[in-house]
């Protein structure tokens, strides 16, 4: 049977067909749906782990115990999981172990555009790169075979376009591979120096064997055409090359580490001009250059951003006659950045932080949108969990006084991911940081996943949720306050008090994400044009529903979810629920 699947769905399906028993992940665009779909299959255990490191450790444990395991994360997640990755490469596996790393060229939803292939190479594990959903499924299955036959974790590297594009996939059945025998082999799985020295030798010889495999693997194939131009490519870029360079010969690489040197050399010899077209880093290109082969790549294409079909046309000088020329207009088109949603609980807090001109060490989540104008209420965003450490560092560098108008803000999921250790540092090293945990009862930015604070697992089973108040108290924070972020007066008062206190404090702002809130009254508000004085105070909320019209404001009732925060800031009582107002 054939079905239209996203790359992510296809990877989940591939894992299921390969007889995988354990799937773990921490959410992260563009990888999130892999594990959401994996959780739909009853035969596989699936979990949202607290972070990527734990996810890979659980996957590693499952594999060592003899089961096939898949671990999925976005590219920056691999940074977090790097520690277990590098040593799992030494121990090898027992049941197959697959790490899916989803890169985001162009940074559609990311804080950087690092290339995961560097990690695969540094950890010395093979890397497969599918070009569409069918390959995403096939390569996933193959990865488990390679993992077991070469006794190594395998990396499947996808990019946003492969992960999110939908293409047709031929579905197969699940193959119950069962569990491999579990044996206690300290020399293989206990990486003390004496054993690790021996395992390193194994890793290096394994690389040699993988290299031989890469030379003849059907994943790497040549599509001969005109030999004037030869293109070496991988992943979705292969599709773009096929779309735009119809005459070129193509060497499509499905395995990009270790590279098939002989195959590449032969291909290079038979074409007049050789290009490598790859997104992000010159990963393939650098190898080819190091072999003394003349090749073009990043002299023509940028290491920055995505490569799209039109990029290839532009860079390779391929004309399209038919396009509507919109260049002069394009430069004048206002950008449309994402915004905090109508009804977003974070808006209340950021309105107050903006008003108090507080220095905000920020973090990653929907609340990062509080950094945008007109709120402008964030000073730093580095990586998940960084806010608290950054705030400590600011205080240690500039002194205690600086901390009197300084906070760290961090979402519930992010706090669990890697904020807890930062908070321990606050207490342990006598910082006086005020940490605000934004508890919106979900992992919002990545599309509403459960997490340890929400009370449910990925499969929707109720569990005992982490009690954030109790947790921070156990760390040693004595000042802990829970507030509703829409109670603006209380938020302001609490913020002033806690920032003034020369000791660690935590404010938990608790209010459910507007997109998952099923209970509250969604009737929109409207503005009485007689009563509105045009003071524009409500505009400071940065609500996308409030629109300035002439000297007054109006509410876009199609978008308004009736949260009422604007009512709180309106000094003239001009905002009423639709139906209640007599305008």
């Amino acid at each position: 049977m054939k079905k239209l699947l996203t790359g992510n769905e296809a990877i989940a399906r591939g894992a299921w067909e390969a007889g995988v028993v354990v799937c773990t992940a921490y959410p992260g665009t563009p990888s999130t749906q892999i594990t959401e779909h994996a959780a739909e299959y009853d035969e596989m255990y699936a979990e949202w782990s607290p972070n990527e490191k734990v996810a890979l450790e659980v996957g590693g444990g499952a594999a060592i115990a003899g089961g096939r395991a898949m671990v999925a994360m976005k590219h920056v997640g691999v940074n977090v999981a790097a520690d277990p990755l590098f040593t799992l490469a030494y121990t090898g596996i027992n049941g197959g172990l697959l790490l899916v790393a989803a890169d985001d060229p162009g940074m559609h939803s990311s804080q950087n555009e690092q290339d995961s292939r560097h990690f695969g190479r540094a950890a010395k594990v093979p890397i497969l790169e599918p070009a569409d959903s069918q390959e995403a499924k096939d390569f996933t299955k193959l990865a488990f075979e390679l993992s077991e036959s070469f006794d190594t974790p395998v990396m499947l590297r996808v990019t946003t376009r492969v992960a999110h594009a939908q293409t047709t996939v031929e579905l197969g059945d699940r193959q119950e591979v069962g569990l491999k025998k579990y044996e206690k082999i300290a020399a293989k799985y206990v990486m003390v120096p004496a054993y690790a020295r021996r395992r390193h030798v194994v890793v290096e010889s394994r690389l040699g064997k993988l290299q031989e495999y890469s030379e003849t693997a059907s994943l790497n194939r040549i599509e001969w055409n005109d030999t004037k131009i030869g293109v070496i490519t991988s992943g979705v870029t292969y599709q773009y090359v096929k779309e735009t360079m119809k005459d070129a010969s193509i060497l499509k690489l499905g395995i990009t580490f270790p590279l098939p040197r002989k195959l590449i050399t032969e291909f290079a010899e038979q074409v007049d001009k050789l290009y490598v077209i790859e997104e992000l880093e010159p990963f393939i290109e650098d190898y080819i250059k190091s072999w003394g082969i003349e090749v073009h790549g990043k002299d023509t294409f940028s290491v920055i951003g995505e490569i799209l079909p039109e990029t290839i046309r532009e860079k390779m000088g391929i004309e399209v006659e038919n396009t509507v020329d919109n260049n002069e207009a394009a430069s004048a088109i206002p950008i449309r950045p994402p915004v905090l949603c109508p009804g977003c609980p974070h808006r209340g807090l950021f309105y107050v932080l903006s008003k108090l001109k507080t220095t905000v060490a920020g973090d990653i989540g929907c609340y990062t949108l509080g950094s945008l104008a007109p709120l402008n209420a964030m000073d730093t965003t580095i990586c998940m969990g960084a806010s608290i450490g950054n705030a400590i560092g600011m205080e240690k560098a500039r002194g205690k006084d600086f901390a009197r108008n300084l906070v760290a803000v961090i979402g519930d999921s992010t706090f669990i991911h890697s904020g807890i250790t930062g908070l321990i540092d606050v207490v342990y090293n006598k910082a006086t940081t005020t940490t605000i945990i934004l508890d919106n009862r979900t992992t919002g930015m990545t599309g509403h996943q459960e997490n340890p604070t929400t009370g449910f697992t990925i499969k929707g089973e109720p569990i005992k949720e982490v009690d954030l108040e109790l947790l921070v108290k156990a760390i040693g924070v004595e000042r802990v306050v829970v507030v509703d972020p829409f109670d603006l007066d209380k938020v302001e008062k609490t913020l002033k008090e806690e920032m003034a206190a020369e000791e660690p404090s935590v404010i938990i702002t608790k209010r459910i994400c507007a997109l998952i809130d099923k209970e509250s009254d969604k009737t929109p508000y409207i503005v009485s044009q007689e009563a509105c004085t045009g003071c524009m105070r409500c505009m400071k909320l940065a609500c996308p529903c409030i629109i300035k019209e002439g000297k007054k404001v109006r509410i876009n009732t199609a978008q308004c979810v009736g949260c009422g925060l604007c009512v709180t800031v309106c000094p003239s009582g001009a905002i009423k629920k639709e139906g209640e107002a007599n305008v």
Partner: protein
Amino acid sequence: MSEIINILIVGVGGQGTILASKVLAGVVQEKGHEVKIAEIHGMSQRGGSVFTQVRYGANIASPTIPQGEADIILAFEKLEALRWLSYLKKNGRILINDQRIDPMPVIMGTVEYPADALQIIQDKCQNVTMIDGVSEALKAGNIKSVNMVLLGVLSKFLDFDGDIWLKVMQETIPAKFIDVNLKAFEAGRKY
């Protein structure tokens, strides 16, 4: 039209472009076409600029529509129509919902919403259809059904029977909302 049909749906996160494209994809598949869809789920869904690219026909390589090759653009918002205009074929068709949603920089007054957006588009393409999606959706009973009104208009320019559209809508849309959505779609089809 050529061997491959390229349809680009653009709008603002939250406007319901994803559901519209899901129905379109369902219809295309129902007819047994090879299809590829490019869409990005992520940060832009929080009120940013969103798109879905649907390609069907034979021998499609790229899941994204190469610039300048869209046969039809369905724009849920005027500024987004302008933003994606260069993706349209020279003789392509653009269907525009006559709605203006100000992006934050415009709301704040740092930049202006291009008042001549429609003029620019009309100067450059012959086949422009304007749609008052909001009024039609309100008439159908829910302002949120603008997406189905627009899909209804799009359906007039594609070669699929009305029945297939209805069947796929019934399979895709929750029963609770189906009546309003069918009404909205019909309004679009008659528009």
